[in-house]
């Protein structure tokens, strides 16, 4: 699947969505990618609200979230390239947008293809990291981010 300059060959058991939110005003929404080993509901918050509560112990949820071009070149996004081989030690129960018992997460800020992103990965069970992290890495290995397809629409970045 591919859209908005993001492409991924989903591993077995994963489903996903790559989209830009509809905006009412002059804001410009950047690309967001949601990938999960469970059924993604139609309405999911940018960082997984509405989805992470549905996760089972063996589930993985990942978000690729693009920021506006004005964030490019800042120190937060100094890392070049998306991490594609996460370690079990990268995951912490407290690195969660919404703390849910048993889960853990990791978040990375980086620039790829000249576009600033954050990668946010949630595991359904912190205790099952040895099994779940390779599944997450299998997804990240298949993901490619290209340059911004076409000029960004003018307006205030939403992300």
């Amino acid at each position, binding site marked *: *699947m*591919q*859209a*908005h300059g*993001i492409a991924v060959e*989903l591993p*077995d*058991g*994963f*489903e*996903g*969505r*790559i*989209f*830009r939110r*509809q905006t009412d005003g002059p804001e410009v929404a950047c690309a967001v990618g949601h990938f999960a*080993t*469970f*059924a993604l*509901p*139609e*309405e999911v918050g940018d960082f997984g609200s509405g989805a992470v509560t549905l996760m*089972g112990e063996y589930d993985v949820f990942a978000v690729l979230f693009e920021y506006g071009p004005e964030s490019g070149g800042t120190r937060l996004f100094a890392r070049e390239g998306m991490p594609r081989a996460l370690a079990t030690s990268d995951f912490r129960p407290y690195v969660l947008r919404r703390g849910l018992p048993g889960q853990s997460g990791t978040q990375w800020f980086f620039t790829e293809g000249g576009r600033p992103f954050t990668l946010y990965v949630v595991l359904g069970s912190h205790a099952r990291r040895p099994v779940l992290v390779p599944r997450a890495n299998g997804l990240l290995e298949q993901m490619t981010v290209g340059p911004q397809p076409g000029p960004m629409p003018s307006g205030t970045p939403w992300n």
Partner: protein
Amino acid sequence: MVALVVVLGLVVTGLAVLVAGLLRSHADILKALHDLGAGVGDPSVSPNADPARADIGSTRPVAVPFTMGPQLPPGRDSTSAPAIAGVTPGGDARAVAPAGSGGLTLLAFLSTGCASCAGFWESFREPSRLGLPTGARLVVVTKGPDREIPGEVAALASPGLDVVMASDAWTDYEVPGSPFFVLVDGTTGRRLGEGVASQFAQVADLVRRAEVDGAGFGPGTRADRLVGLDGPERESDNDAELRAAGILPGDPSLYPTSLEDLYGPPDARMPATDRHVRRAG
């Protein structure tokens, strides 16, 4: 002497008429066979004169126009539920994995042009009134932007409806036409059922029944093992079940000759309702 010659002449004449009649009859049969396309040959036409009729009168195989559908990818069968990847009417990317979802997924293959689909598009505008069991999700699959106009799909799809435009999915699920519904059990990763319906209430009823029967298709159950089995594998599985029940080859119960062999003497039979109650207990 004269009488003998006359008689002989009559006999010869009669035989000549008889032979002529037989030849005429044979010619009629050959003509009828030729009209039926039996390839007996047409002596009036040389095979070399008309290439289109070159096979007439020969024993060579005749090419018959016949189109095979696209082959299923390896590893897939009639009950597998491959992932569906495509785009949304808004141009975003969407991939659905019914086999890994854990719950029931109802795939509704619809198009914008078919009259029968209009009622379903209308029904999907009120998801709360669809009557699907909690936890069962609905995904509408249309053909891709190469076959459908995204704007028309967007106009029919209500906000919040999960729509994937993917032509490949129609091939993967061997969809004969629209509307068509496929119910997938995300736990086993198998199709529970598929078919056509005229009203969504019929589909919702089937989904509810499938949910109730779901325990019978759980992992490790006999029903789960049988899904997808066919031919020798299914026969072997049946043999194993019979052996486990103590029924070996040659067992008389395998060869009933009367109703009494199946149900016992009439006096020992109990009302059907009683039998069901006891089985349930």
